[in-house]
Every structure is written in structure tokens, then in C-alpha cells.
């Protein structure tokens, strides 16, 4: 049942929107300290080489240069990474460089221009090694090896099997095997990385930066600098968007800002250029996929098998997770009796890949969601009906052990069908018009490491307002607003009475895993709710005493605290808070509520793939209608409809913004975005927004519609689940299927450029 609430569920403007609209929010590059020096990074110009020597003497003699660091300035051999087996990165290259763009040295000077000039004076002597850029070449015996301890460049692999796929294929009336690929894309945030480091004489290393998961940065800085975490402090500025690990990890600028500060005794600031951002590591893994689906003629899916090779680039980062996630998402949102997955993440001499909105899940869904459409077409079945026939339902447990609690997937498909005019349009549109459906299911808080809990503190102020300290990092998605709404709702206050910490300070905010895996609303939202309820209970106890009514009778509403049976007589909340603070004798106190939340979900067993990866799951069905210009091959999205089971829309404006953003980011990858590389040395060919094309306002669908399907999750804060990451997945097959419907040719390789469309149309006409 959906209860009517006062603050939660309302389209309230973001709590930081006025600061952002007036240019007063302080982002990474806006932060400065007096006496600050400016840093620049030297990047490798060769794809694979041993570093024999770095001569910095000439650069150090340039007037204005204060210090230079190379790999030798950091604890030798001390590597950082996600787990013990993947620790293969150092702050600057120590023995080897592994891609064009790998960081080799850094300069601190009195201004940016001098620092930049000094880079040209650093002489690096390399012994070049053979390099490899294609993951299939890299896996061959005798291929150049990027990391000594890793055989055949297999960075990570994941195998998973439930049931018996061979049996499942035998039981199927139709089986298809097809291949698909996806390309490298960047996160595409507009604010380049920026940090200020200060290593003070007490030995404390403080970093200010635009970070998405400051506690990940804090842990990895400590790891690679050889410091106890208490000696590292990370303070988050406003963040010019995130979308994944490109904002979660520390990079060379962060380590070097601190080390150069240690060397010079001054604060040191680094601001990367957009070229730095586009050339350096962190991007979406390109995928090569061979997938197989078996179905009965009635439309029951009997088996799915997937073989994946992911191009990981030069380092591991969270590679084991990247290659496992596609496996962990195979058996949602459909009931599948037989599944097999074999995935390999491979090192190549290119920028490394990590997580990006829909982390490696969008890629496999691009393949599986289209193959489902192909199988349905072959059997003369309707993909919408097949989706409903195979849908997961509340109470289901998948073969991997996922417990499906709230689930309105069937309703999502039905609503998307209805709102898009699917039945009237599918197969009935004129030539070069097409309609396609895609579905997906997503997690709400992935457990990537031991730490998954979130915490919150709510302090009641004597003027009747509340101050909230959350561990959640707002990177624009609106967690500060959502947390504030939840606290306001519990305490019966309007949103303007809530003050929330503007950012994370690892010394003082509750330790939090970070903004990833679609966990923030659920985990931090629940922690905020518990903290607000704790504060409320403490104040209600005071009210119960002074009003002489039972505790359970006490209501908090409209800045008042009163008894259910006598709503007219009560206390204004500010007066009651002051009373609690001043006039309760030995029991007087400033009311501070605390809340911590962990779903208790176990870490999934990577060996068997068994476990429950998330406390709950979201579901989506998208329908996309397109037009194709047969002269130019250009695709126009005429209408996009999505029905999303997000539990409850905590703030419909913010939810719609998340869904819009997810779609348009996906549209870029689907239609044109691609980080292109030179085939001979792997360097990035398009490191600017001039050549790396992202969607503009002219590229968005002519019409779009989001339908919130509110399944009211039993464990979510006020029923809420993830929103905004899952929505970036279903759109992949939906658009691919629409293209097929429009031109009658399947384009398996992303992006679906006009060139590919034209070629497909031409070949079809010629009967190839």
C-alpha cells in the first residue's frame, strides 16, 4: 500500500540547486589555498616500454619549477588496487609504461604554464617493448605480456553455470548463436579531474577533489602512500558528474599533489585538461560476445549461453567485478532454467577500463536483448508476450539464488506496450520506420567488497530545524535532496528546515562505500530514515513526559509534536527541542539521532556465482520508435517510452531526470560515441569533444515518456529502489531491435553509425 506522505514523493527542487544556478557551488578546480603551486603530469608517448632513466635536471633548473616527482618518489613496489590479486597500479609508472598516456612524472611550479614548459625538459629513456592492442591477439601464446605475474594477459575471468545448457538447447525448438560487439566510450563528464593536496608538517595528507566515492580514494591513497588511513583525509568538492570509476578512484594527480606538497611544503593543485581525461584510463570495456539462446515454440526460454571477451586495457582496476557482473545479470529479469557464462577480461596496451553506468551489463544486454528479438522473430512470437511469459515474479528465487521481493516486471512490459502503441505498430510501420522493445533488471546496491553499510547522524537544533550528516556522496544525482526529504518526512518538517553536509570529509562524515552500484538511495536513505527515527524517538520520549501521554500516541507533523487523541494541544517542535536541551534536569540533552543500515546481503561467491547480489531488484521495459533516413542512414528517435519499477519515486522530478539522463547517455553509445584508437600504437585519435561526439539537445528523442511503476519495496526507504542506472540498460536492445524493425537488417556492432545503416540498406537491396 502506498501511504500519502508530505515531503517524500514530491517533486521538490534539489537542495543545492540555487547554489549551482548562481555559480556559487565550489567544484574541483574552484578550490584554492594560499601559496599554492600548480602541477602538471608527463604522460608516456610509447605504448609499452621499460623505463631506463628519467632525467629531470634540466626541468628542475627552469625558473619557477619547485619540485618534480617520478615513480621513485613513491614507496617502491607498493601497488594499489581493488583486491590483493589486482593491485597492479602505482601512482606513477615505476618499472614500465603500458599505454600511451600512462603517467611518468609530475612537476610543481609557480604557475601552470611553467609546469607545462618543464614537462618538455624531462628526458625519459625507454627500452621499447612489443605491444598488443587486440584482446584476441593478447591472449595468444607468445603475445607481449603486460604484467609479469599474469599469464596470457588474462586479467580476470568468470565462469558460471546453472542447470545444463546443452540439455536446455536440446529441449528448445529453436536455437540461435550470434555475435555482437560494443565499443569504448568515456564517462563524458564536463568537469575535468582537479585536486589540491596538502601534506602538512604534522604528517597529515589532505586532498580536496571532485570525487564520487571519497572513501575509495582515501583507502587507496593510504595504500599506495604507505600511510595509515588516519593520516589521509579526503575532502570532496562539488562534483561535475561521475557515472563510474573515473570519479571513484584516485589518479596520478591525486598522489602527485600530495607527494609534491610533501616535497615543497606548499599546497599543490592539479587540474587536468579534457585531453588528459579522454586519453587516460577509465572508460567502458569494449565487449566481444558470442551468445546462444534456445526457446520452445510456445516462447519459453530454455537456455542461454554467453562467451565474452572484454578488452580491459593496461590495468586491472575492478576487472574481476567487471567481467563477473554480466554473468550475475544473465538470469534476471527472466526465469531461466539453464545458463552458462564464460568471460575473460584481457590486458592490452591501451587506457584501462572500469565501471560506467550499467557496468558491463549494458554490453551483454545489447547482445541478449537483441537475440531474444531475433529468436522471437524466427518463431513468429511477440517479444512483449514472450517477456511476460518468462518474467520473474515476487517470491521467485533465481538459479543463482537471487531473492526477488518487490517485482512489477510484468506490469512494466504491459504499461510500455500500452503507452507506446506497440500492438498497433509492431510489424505494421511503413518502410524505414521501426519499433523495438528491450527489457532489463538491475540491482539496488551491489556488494563489491566487505564494506556495504551506510550511516547517518541527525541533530535537532533549538530553532526547530535539523542538521544531517550523511556518508552519501552527491555527484549531481541528488542524494543530498533525497536524504533531506526522508529526514524531513520522519520529523514532520518541511524540507527547508533540513541542513545537510555539502560534501564528504573522510575525517568527520560517516564512513561510506561510495556512490556506485546503485546503492545510495537505498542504503543511505535507509540509514537516514533510521537516524531520523532515532532522533524522533528521543524527542518523543521528552514529549511523552511533558505532555503526559503514552509514547505511541505522539505525532510529529507540520513543525508540531502532539498527541494523536488531542491534536489541538501540543508543542511546537522548536520549543520541545529547547525543553529537551535545557529543562530536563540530568536528562537534558542535545538530541542526536544515529542510524546505520546494511541489507545483510552476502557477498556473492565468485567461484559458483551463487548468492544474492542485491537486497532487491529493479525492472524496466523500454519501447523505442525510430525513423531512418534511407538517403543518409541517419536515425531519428521519434518516441521513447519506458516503464520502470523503481519501488517508489522518492522525488518524481529527480527520478525523471535520472531516467532521461540514462537514456541519452546510452543513446550516445548506441548511435555515434566511440573513443577511437590508432591501430599501430593504440593512441587515442579523438581526445576532444570536437571529435568525441556526445549527444546534444538536437539529438534527443522527439517524444519521451517515463512511467513509474511503484512496487513499494518492503525494505527500501519508503518503498524506494534504484533509479537511473538500470534505465541505461534496456534502451540498448530496444534501440537495436527498432533498427532491425526499420531496415530489416541486424547491426550487431556498436555504434550504429549512418555509414553502417547505409551499407546495410544497400546490401539488403542487392540481396546480399
Amino acid at each position, binding site marked *: 500500500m502506498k501511504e500519502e506522505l508530505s515531503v517524500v514523493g514530491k517533486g521538490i*527542487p534539489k537542495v543545492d540547486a540555487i547554489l549551482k544556478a*548562481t555559480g556559487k557551488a565550489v567544484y574541483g578546480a574552484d578550490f584554492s589555498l594560499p601559496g599554492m603551486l600548480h602541477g602538471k603530469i608527463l604522460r608516456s608517448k610509447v605504448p609499452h616500454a621499460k623505463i631506463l632513466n628519467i632525467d629531470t635536471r634540466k626541468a628542475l633548473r627552469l625558473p619557477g619549477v619547485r619540485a618534480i616527482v617520478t615513480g621513485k618518489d613513491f614507496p617502491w613496489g607498493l601497488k594499489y588496487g581493488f583486491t590483493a590479486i589486482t593491485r597492479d597500479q602505482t601512482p606513477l609508472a615505476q618499472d614500465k609504461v603500458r599505454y600511451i598516456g600512462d603517467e611518468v612524472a609530475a612537476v610543481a611550479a609557480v604557475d601552470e604554464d611553467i609546469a607545462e614548459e618543464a614537462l618538455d625538459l624531462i628526458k625519459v629513456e625507454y627500452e621499447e617493448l612489443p605491444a598488443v592492442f587486440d584482446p584476441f591477439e593478447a591472449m595468444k601464446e607468445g603475445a607481449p605480456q603486460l604484467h609479469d605475474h599474469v599469464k596470457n594477459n588474462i586479467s580476470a575471468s568468470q565462469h558460471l553455470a546453472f542447470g545444463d545448457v546443452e540439455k536446455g538447447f536440446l529441449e528448445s525448438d529453436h536455437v540461435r548463436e550470434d555475435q555482437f560487439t560494443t565499443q569504448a566510450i568515456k564517462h563524458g563528464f*564536463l568537469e575535468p579531474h582537479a585536486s589540491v593536496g596538502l601534506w602538512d608538517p604534522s604528517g597529515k595528507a589532505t586532498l580536496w577533489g571532485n570525487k564520487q566515492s571519497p572513501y575509495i580514494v582515501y583507502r587507496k591513497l593510504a595504500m599506495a602512500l604507505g600511510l595509515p588511513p588516519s593520516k589521509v583525509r579526503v575532502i570532496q568538492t562539488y562534483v561535475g558528474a561521475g557515472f563510474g570509476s573515473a570519479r571513484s578512484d584516485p589518479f596520478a594527480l591525486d598522489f602527485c599533489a600530495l607527494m609534491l606538497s610533501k616535497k615543497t611544503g606548499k599546497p599543490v593543485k592539479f587540474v587536468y585538461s*579534457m585531453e588528459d581525461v579522454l586519453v587516460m584510463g577509465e572508460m567502458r570495456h569494449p565487449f566481444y560476445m558470442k551468445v546462444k539462446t534456445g526457446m520452445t515454440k510456445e516462447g519459453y526460454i530454455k537456455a542461454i549461453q554467453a562467451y565474452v571477451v572484454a578488452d580491459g586495457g593496461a590495468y586491472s582496476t575492478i576487472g574481476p567485478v567487471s567481467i563477473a557482473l554480466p554473468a550475475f545479470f544473465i538470469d534476471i529479469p527472466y526465469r531461466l532454467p539453464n545458463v552458462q557464462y564464460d568471460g575473460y577480461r584481457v590486458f592490452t596496451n591501451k587506457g584501462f577500463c572500469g565501471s560506467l553506468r550499467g557496468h558491463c551489463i549494458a554490453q551483454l544486454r545489447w547482445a541478449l536483448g537483441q537475440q531474444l528479438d531475433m529468436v522471437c522473430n524466427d518463431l513468429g512470437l511477440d517479444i512483449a508476450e514472450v517477456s511476460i511469459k518468462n518474467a520473474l515474479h515476487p517470491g521467485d528465487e533465481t538459479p543463482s539464488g537471487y531473492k526477488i521481493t518487490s517485482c512489477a516486471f510484468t506490469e512494466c512490459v504491459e504499461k510500455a506496450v500500452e503507452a507506446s502503441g506497440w500492438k498497433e505498430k509492431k510489424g505494421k510501420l511503413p518502410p524505414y520506420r521501426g519499433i523495438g522493445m528491450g527489457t532489463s533488471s538491475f540491482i539496488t546496491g551491489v556488494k563489491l567488497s566487505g564494506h556495504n553499510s551506510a550511516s547517518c547522524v541527525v541533530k535537532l537544533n533549538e530553532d526547530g530545524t535539523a542538521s544531517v550528516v550523511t556518508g552519501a556522496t552527491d555527484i549531481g544525482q541528488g542524494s543530498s535532496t533525497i536524504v533531506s526529504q526522508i529526514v524531513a518526512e520522519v520529523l514532520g518538517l518541511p524540507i527547508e528546515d533540513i541542513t545537510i553536509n555539502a560534501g564528504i570529509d573522510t575525517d568527520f562524515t560517516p564512513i561510506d562505500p561510495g556512490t556506485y552500484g546503485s546503492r545510495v538511495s537505498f542504503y543511505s536513505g535507509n540509514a537516514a530514515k533510521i537516524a531520523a527515527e532515532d532522533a524522533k524517538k528521543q524527542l518523543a520520549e521528552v514529549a511523552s513526559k511533558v505532555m503526559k501521554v503514552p509514547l505511541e500516541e505522539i505525532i510529529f507533523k507540520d513543525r508540531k509534536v502532539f498527541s494523536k487523541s488531542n491534536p489541538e494541544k501540543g508543542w511546537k517542535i522548536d520549543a520541545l527541542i529547547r525543553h529537551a536541551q535545557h529543562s530536563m534536569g540530568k536528562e537534558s540533552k542535545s538530541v542526536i539521532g544515529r542510524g546505520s543500515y546494511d541489507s545483510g546481503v552476502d557477498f556473492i561467491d565468485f567461484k559458483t556465482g551463487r548468492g544474492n547480489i542485491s537486497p532487491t531488484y529493479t525492472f524496466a521495459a523500454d519501447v523505442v520508435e525510430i525513423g531512418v533516413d534511407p538517403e543518409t542512414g541517419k536515425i531519428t528517435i521519434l518516441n521513447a517510452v519506458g516503464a520502470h519499477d523503481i519501488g517508489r519515486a522518492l522525488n518524481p522530478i529527480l527520478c525523471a*531526470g535520472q531516467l532521461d539522463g540514462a537514456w541519452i547517455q546510452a543513446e550516445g553509445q548506441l548511435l555515434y560515441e566511440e573513443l577511437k584508437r590508432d591501430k599501430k600504437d593504440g593512441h587515442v585519435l579523438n581526445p*576532444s569533444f570536437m571529435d568525441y561526439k556526445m549527444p546534444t*539537445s538536437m539529438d*534527443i528523442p522527439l517524444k519521451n515518456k517515463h512511467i513509474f511503476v511503484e512496487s513499494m519495496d518492503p525494505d527500501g526507504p519508503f518503498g524506494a529502489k534504484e533509479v537511473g542506472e538500470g534505465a541505461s540498460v534496456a534502451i540498448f536492445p530496444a534501440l537495436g531491435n527498432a533498427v532491425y524493425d526499420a531496415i530489416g537488417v541486424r547491426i550487431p556492432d556498436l555504434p550504429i553509425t549512418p555509414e553502417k545503416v547505409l551499407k546495410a540498406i544497400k546490401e539488403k537491396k542487392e540481396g546480399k
Partner: protein
Amino acid sequence: MRFNVNGVIYEEEIDHRRTLLEVLRENLGLLGTHKGCDEGQCGACTVLIDGKAVNSCLVLAASVQSKKITTIEGLAQGEKLHPVQEAFVETGAIQCGFCSPGMIMIAKAFLDGHPNPTEEEAKRAISGNLCRCTGYFQIVDAVMKAAEKMRKEA
């Protein structure tokens, strides 16, 4: 050099190679104008020169000494937001907010000359400014809502 920014006259000694963006941020401390790509592709640094929207990263500071420059800091009157800012706040057009000052400036310049735009015109007007968060729908809504607010105020 002498600059008129948001009605305030600044006199600064400036290297003739500095861009307007650099001078606004580094000399005048007006940090609301953001540096994204620094090559005229993203629009995060949009300001108005004599009412016309430009990418301040592509303008040499020396060339605008006699002109009236308006930045995001010059729109609100104290706590009273400009209607474009109000509309951006209300419609959800701001997520991370990094593109917002540039978006708001381009929207203001557009609406000053087109008080009664169609959605298509609004989309075209902001098409030189990138936003990776919103997917633009709520920004277009904001421009349309701002137009309405400005018509009412006029």
C-alpha cells in the same frame, strides 16, 4: 586592462595572451564560469558580451575591454533569482550543475531575443552547450518555463 563585468569596473594587469575565461576565474575570482573543455566545444564557460552569448575560453580578454560582460554572478539581484535561474531550479534542469551557469547564460541570451519560443527553437538555442546528466529534456522545460516567467515580468 579595464573590464566591466556585471556592472563592476575592474582594473587588472593582465598578460595579453590570457583568455576572458582565465581572467574571470583567476584574476577576478568569478568562479561561476566553468572551464570544461577549454576549446569551445562544451559551453560550460558561456558568458554574455554586450548581451551576446560567447564561449569565454575562445575570447582574448584584451579584446573585450570596452564591452559589457555579464557572468552567472550578475544575474540574480541579491537573493532574488533571475527567472531563468528560478526555472532551472524548479524543473530539475540542474543535476551536477557544472554545465548550469553556461546553460543559464545561453538561455538568457536566447530568451532576451526570443520571448515566445517554440520547444524546437529552445532546443536549437542550447545545442552548443553540452550536458551529460539531464538528457536535456528538463533543460528544455526550464527554458520554456523561463520564457513564460519573463513574459509575465515584462
